[in-house]
């Protein structure tokens, strides 16, 4: 299920794993994305930890872990095609996957409807 943070990250929890990315709103605000700095596989993250940076022509934005877990995979397609995040931020433009997650961290987050309201 999709959850959103106030910093415009999304996390999609599926069983004991989760996928993380940035929202459509975030990619639009950032503009053309030129580079993504992703965490190392194996890195252990607590909710709120900085996990990487998304760089565009006008800004470099830190990305924070919406929930706790361990990085199991990163989206290597973003190396050569960072624009995937602009084109498909909530699907093909995913940033990384986590295992060993603390699903209850998502209780603090917004669902799709609440996030839409939050954006105003």
């Amino acid at each position, binding site marked *: 299920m999709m959850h959103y943070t106030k910093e415009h990250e999304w996390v999609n929890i599926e069983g004991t794993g989760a996928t993380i990315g940035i929202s459509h709103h975030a990619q639009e605000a950032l503009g053309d994305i*030129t*580079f993504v*700095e992703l965490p190392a596989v194996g890195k252990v993250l607590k909710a709120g930890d900085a996990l990487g940076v998304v*760089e*565009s*022509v*006008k*800004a*470099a934005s*830190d990305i924070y872990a919406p929930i706790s877990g361990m990085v199991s995979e990163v989206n290597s397609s973003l190396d050569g095609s960072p624009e995937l995040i602009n084109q498909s931020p909530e699907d093909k433009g995913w940033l990384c996957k986590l295992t060993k997650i603390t699903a209850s961290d998502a209780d603090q987050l917004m669902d799709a409807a609440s996030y839409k309201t939050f954006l105003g």
Partner: protein
Amino acid sequence: MSFTPHTLEDRDEMLATLGVSSLKELFADIPQSAHLAKLDMPDGISEQEVYDRLHALSHKNAHELTCFIGGGFYDHSIPSAVDTLSSRGEFFTAYTPYQPEVAQGTLQAIFEFQSMICRLTGMDVANASMYDGGTALVEAALMAIRSTNRPRIIVAGGLNPIYRRMLDTYTRNLHIEMEELPFDEGAVDRVKLASLLTDQTAAVIIQNPNFFGTIEDFSDISAMAHANGALMIASVYPIAMGLIKSPAEMGCDIVVGEGQSLGLPLSFGGPYLGFFAVQKAHVRKMPGRIVGETTDRHGNRCYVLTLQAREQHIRREKAASNICSNEALCALRATIYLSLLGKQGLTELARTCMTKAEYAKAQFAQIKGVRIKNSAPTFNEFMLELPCNASDLVAELIPLGLIAGFPLGRYYPELQNCLLVAITEKRTQAEIDAFVSAVKGLLK
């Protein structure tokens, strides 16, 4: 917009627009105690009187002495065209090229500079320059720490002692440890280095030629560093790059150095010019300004500041470094200098420096009581071990019209009798012979 002071008419007009009758009324909100009552300045003097006064001041400096001092900064010959071209108003008065649409000349010149630094060092990418070789080295160390997430740096003992102190100054309050490979004027002690390399080592820093003039191939040291997951940083002398194996060929990840020798006068300490170059894999971690080449909407080639999202004005406290400037005019001089010299000219220049230094070494070695302390090959600088205090000898040689060299006792207490002598293409055989003769005379 006029850059000259306001006329009385300008003031009256501004006051009228503001609706106040006088400056006093304008500044009424400022406490009386903070008002400037009177500027206690002498009357103005004529241009000629100003010239005479400044001329007298400048002549308190001894600038006619033959220079044999090096230690990182050298008395090289500067072609007149460097002064003439870099003094052109379009270059001399240009501001930072944040607006590419009005700064193509500046941006292109910096791009050429970056390209030349890459050719000189063999590296993939160079930035638009740093303040000087020392801060460039500090930034390289900090970059390695950031890149590897490790807290220790190994510093070879042959590093310029001024740069060594700068590394300490910048890292004093950070959780970073500098480990020094014991002083050695010859080649780096590989056995000792191996014992210091751990998985906490972010980088190894080596200078080539080192502070004492020694040159060596440190490809094996790069391999040792890399095998340990550490980066290899080299601080180099650009003129020497015309002759010796490039740091890129030796496996360096980051190359820095002092560009003063490329068309900048010694100027009693500055302004100088740092250069910073990396291999492509590290470009996003590189501090400083970078000029990139692109095309405009008409398809014309043009230049622009690029990768700015790493810099302080965008990334703020999370920026790679707080440098948001470069030494544009100095970099321009270096670019003109290298253009005039050309690849062949630089090689010939380097060869001339080395050949003259070898000649000087041979002459000094013949003086009874004097020994060449370097045990390994040197470029254009070497150490003389004297039968007396080096500072004393330097003092005695000044009235004879020469600055004999750098007394090493200043930074190395155990080397009170050692003098670091540098020879550039400017030193004639007659000057070298006179130097040797003077030393011989004083040591009798």
